[in-house]
């Protein structure tokens, strides 16, 4: 369980590392802790998996990956884990999840693939299909990015259920 102090640390850490000589010291001062205590806390968060990664998130525009496709697969239940692991092993696959089937929606394994073109995404999907023997799949290309933002955790005083006000406060 997270303590109130943990939450306070997360609230500040999610703003990112300041570009100053001793960034942990700067943050620690705000939290009224020492630099060492903060670094230890961060290590604990990493060990416990609450921090998935500590580093930079880099935008991928301009970097040569123009097409992304969600490839969805209809996989027999008993083969999902094995298939998911095989697909996750491909470097072109950036995300791979099992999700539930729904009425009119037979696909239970989701992958996101990135490539230089649609044709290349098609090609990757074919290779994934050949590697796993799963033949019922569909590529769904993205047309427009409508929103992309980082989640703000444990923010006080902000309504999570807006909907009324701030209709256009996009990320």
């Amino acid at each position: 369980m997270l303590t109130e102090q943990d939450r306070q640390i997360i609230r500040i850490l999610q703003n990112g590392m300041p570009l100053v000589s001793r960034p942990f010291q700067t943050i620690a001062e705000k939290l009224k802790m020492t630099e060492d205590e903060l670094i230890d806390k961060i290590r604990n968060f990493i060990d416990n998996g609450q921090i998935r990664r500590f580093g930079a998130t880099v935008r991928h525009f301009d970097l040569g990956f123009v097409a992304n496709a969600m490839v969805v697969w209809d996989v027999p239940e008993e083969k999902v884990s094995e298939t998911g692991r095989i697909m996750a092993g491909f470097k072109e696959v950036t995300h791979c999840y099992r999700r539930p089937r729904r009425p009119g929606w037979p696909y239970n394994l989701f992958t996101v693939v990135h490539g230089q073109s649609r044709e290349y995404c098609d090609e990757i999907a074919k290779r994934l299909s050949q590697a796993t023997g799963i033949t019922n799949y569909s590529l769904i290309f993205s047309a427009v990015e409508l929103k992309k933002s980082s989640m703000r955790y444990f923010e006080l005083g902000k309504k999570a259920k807006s909907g009324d006000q701030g209709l256009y406060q996009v990320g």
Partner: protein
Amino acid sequence: MYLDNIDRKLLNLVQENFPLVPEPYRKLGGIIGMGEGEVLARLKRLQDKGVIRHLGAIFDSRKLGYSGTLCAMHVEPDRVDEVAALINSFPGVTHNYLREHRFNMWFTILAGSRAELSEILSLIREKTGIKEIMELPAEEVFKIKVNFDTETSTVSIEGYIEC
């Protein structure tokens, strides 16, 4: 923007291994062979130009006690802007993509609890009048971490669909 080889090296390094030491930028400089000042100047430029979106902790929402799901719905083409504006107004909606499919709007929601998640989805149904929203929460994660080699081709894609 143009990235030189040193930018790429720095990006590569800082994606995975931000040093957890009192003077991390000095340490990064030591690895690449430059001073702390130049590391800070380059990172500042990469941030200002939007190449670096975030520098620091990337949290696992589930481990923080949050609930989330991927959602898909069919929105008539002439209502896309209006419906997107409504859905995007919820802070917990982190990603929203228009995709080429009958289910054309795909978005992710994070909320502090399952109850709050249901409440937000009910509000979206009510306010848009669109009853059919497919909820597709991740049941098993096989891969999420993404780091491409910035020295050869470049890229990192994070939290693209996190729920």
